[in-house]
């Protein structure tokens, strides 16, 4: 098993998951969510990768081509990732405006008061 897009994708997802689970800063949590989403995009696009393959646009006969479907659906995923990230950042901003903190531990303390 080589060091290809699939392995790097999985490593990036797990790094993002580690960040989401351990970071206490809301902004950093949002960043880690986006890192996870990028990792899965890399994984999915690498699934359709063929060495020396070309885009699936034929002008003369059949050639070696990469699988176009993962690329098409990953465009959708990137857009969804953008929506989620902007929404999460907006929520983090509102939390900062209300509670004047980005630290999750402070938030829990202030909520229990």
């Amino acid at each position: 098993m080589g060091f290809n897009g699939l392995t790097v994708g999985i490593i990036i997802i797990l790094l993002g998951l580690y960040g989401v689970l351990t970071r206490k800063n809301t902004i950093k949590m949002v960043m880690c969510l986006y890192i996870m989403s990028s990792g899965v995009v890399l994984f999915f696009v690498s699934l359709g990768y063929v060495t020396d393959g070309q885009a699936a646009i034929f002008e003369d006969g059949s050639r070696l081509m990469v699988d176009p479907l993962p690329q098409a659906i990953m465009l959708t995923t990137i857009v969804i990732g953008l929506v989620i990230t902007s929404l999460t950042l907006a929520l983090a901003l509102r939390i900062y405006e209300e509670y004047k903190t980005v630290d999750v531990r402070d938030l829990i303390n202030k909520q229990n008061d």
Partner: protein
Amino acid sequence: MTNAPILIIAIPLLAAFLTHLTKYARARRGAELVAFSALLASAYFLLTTAPVVLSDQVIKYNLGGWSAPFGISLQLDGLSFFFSAMVLGVGLLILVYSLGIYLYARRYYSLLLIAIAAILGIVLTRDIFNMYVFFEMLAVASYVLITYKHKPRTIIASFKYLVMTEATWVFFLLAIALLYSLTGSLNMDVIAAQLPQIYQAQPHMVYLIFSIMLISFGIKCGMFPLHTWIPEANSQAPTPVSGLLSGLILKVGLYAMLRVFFLFFGSTLLAQGVGNIIIFIGIISLIFGAGMALVQVELKRLLAYSSIGQIGFILVGLGLATQWGLQGALFHIFNHAMIKTALFFCAGIIISQTGFWRLNQMKGIWRQMPGVTFAFCLLSLAVIGIPPSNGFVSKFFIIEAVLLKQNCLIMFCLFLGILLTAACYFRVIQTFFSPSEFHHKQDFIPQPVGHFEHLATYIFTFLCVVIGLFPTVIINLIQPAVRVLLP
């Protein structure tokens, strides 16, 4: 054959954008009118398909004219019909409740319509990636709906829900990637046809995909270890949104479980006894949810924990994967959607009319609001499962299924769960009827509640009693759905 499947989804989605344009119209209640007519039109197109679907035929619709393995296809069968009917019915009554509170709130109706369109999309689609997209659409709409009142605590609740769900759904996308690499298709029929062979060759991959999907759908339906977003989000959200979350959004996770598990793993993993894991999780959810509901001090939080318990009950029926079990699970999904939405409506009316959050401040409520208290009592009987109510019939089916399995331990746990549920609701009823004390300081300024809120609550309560007396009406709807799951 017919355009009904796409119209059912497209009409509410189009109307969601039209509600914003009503700003330029002269009509006084433009947004409300658009939302209502969209849901009614959607329900009309669903009803036109009823004779075909209920006679066990399947309506397929290929988007853009691309046939099944290449394009996205929608499919309306018994299971989809049952869930679509439930979603549109409960959605309409949530809309009725909202009429009284959110006058001229275009953004609210727009988001509500997007959420309902997304649920209908999840229910009708036959493409696994399309299902993911609709799930994300539903999630985005619900994150914003929870924060609709702009109370500070709702924003934290929404943030927690968002981070938990999105981190899990990245892994769902990974499961889709694995399925695509194994089968070369995203169409659910193609994947289902190939999975048994893949199970022979690489069982560990199938187990991996199953576990990722169990966790992804579990976080949506709130099964035990993944439930932590529910109490916060459900108790802080505005009342109609609590009804939407508990009544419909939790059920969507259960729908996805029913559809995907029985289609993909029906002949392999479920036949090998993997359903026992779901039963185990269901029992823990049931006892945990009912037990936690017993010690809550806030009324809406109590109802939210009780939802987790009832979801556990449904999971037991689902995990049994027998005729009786599935019939009971589907019936209880339907009943719980109605009962819990109505209970949240009752709680919402009581809370906004008294200005109290906590249960111990609500003593003697029955003098002020006899109608709502009576409705709450009837609905409590339904959620516990006492005979003249719909909850009894569905719980009876699930218990019958457990009896046929001859498993005493599951039986004992189910009865323990029912007892805990009964204890928690009787505690609420006792508080409502105990002598009143009027020395509490109000949490916020009470607002008078209009007729629409009462109307929606009473319609739900009436339907619960009627379905309890005549359950065969719904059972006739459920039979085709069970035949889809167990061919």
